[in-house]
């Protein structure tokens, strides 16, 4: 794996530098992608299933958006905790994590895109 540290750079002498593993950063990045994907999946599933939409309606004034957003945030935080425990001491390249996360975010955005998720609505 290529080193992440910019060895060629002139390191300012008096600043405090502590080498830390890149794993926790990769975990945070991947978890963000999982959170975005979860939001897209919950949004599309709520449109496709009336029962699931009712399940996601945690509070009536906010409607199913309450369950979609709370669900996505919980999934994001759980994924972050699990990935952090897995990668906290490891040298995982954040760039690879970013590539995976960009795909997950893309799918998540697709799932929240009205023209996409409204296509799954049951016929009236």
């Amino acid at each position, binding site marked *: 794996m290529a080193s*992440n540290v910019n060895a060629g750079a002139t390191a300012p002498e008096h600043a405090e530098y502590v080498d830390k593993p*890149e794993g926790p950063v990769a975990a945070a990045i991947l978890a963000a992608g999982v959170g975005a994907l979860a939001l897209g999946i919950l949004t599309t599933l709520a449109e496709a299933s009336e029962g699931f939409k009712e399940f996601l309606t945690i509070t009536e004034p906010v409607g199913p958006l309450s369950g979609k957003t709370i669900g996505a945030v919980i999934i994001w935080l759980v994924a972050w905790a699990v990935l952090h425990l897995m990668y906290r001491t490891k040298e995982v390249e954040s760039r690879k994590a970013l590539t995976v996360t960009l795909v997950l*975010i893309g799918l998540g955005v697709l799932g929240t895109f009205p023209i996409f998720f409204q296509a799954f609505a049951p016929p009236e």
Partner: protein
Amino acid sequence: MSLTDREFWTLVHGMGFGALFLLGFAGGLEGLYSLRPQFLQPAGVRDRARRLQIGVVTMAVAAWGTVLTGTWIVYPWYREDIPESPRSVLLADPATEEWHHFGMEWKEHVAWISPILATTVAFIVLYYGTSLIRHDRVRKTTIVLFVLAFVFAAVAGLFGALITKAAPLV
């Protein structure tokens, strides 16, 4: 000159938290871009890293403030099942119903990706601190996430402004 409760919270949501996040983006991007050894002296690194930490944490808090006030305070008023609610007003006219079906439906969902990404950026900047200057790959990755957080917030902010213009919440 006065504001109703609904106008006040709409202002807090959009012109308070939302504007703080969007306006802070330029400063945060400049901070991340210029955090390079060839640009800074040691004292400058510490000062720049400290300001960057404060900036990205403030932006993450602002992003969460925006979506929480938007979803849990303003949105219930928007979607109230009464003829005067913005949602009802938009749907009553075929010329404006797409503001709801497309604009609001996308905005209310995609906006939530922004605080998740902003929090990730804040975590990375806090985790590395001054050492971020030595991690060029991570710094560039952080910039990508930071720009995406801004893009999603900007999409939501733009639709929010246009929808409020078409059907104000009063």
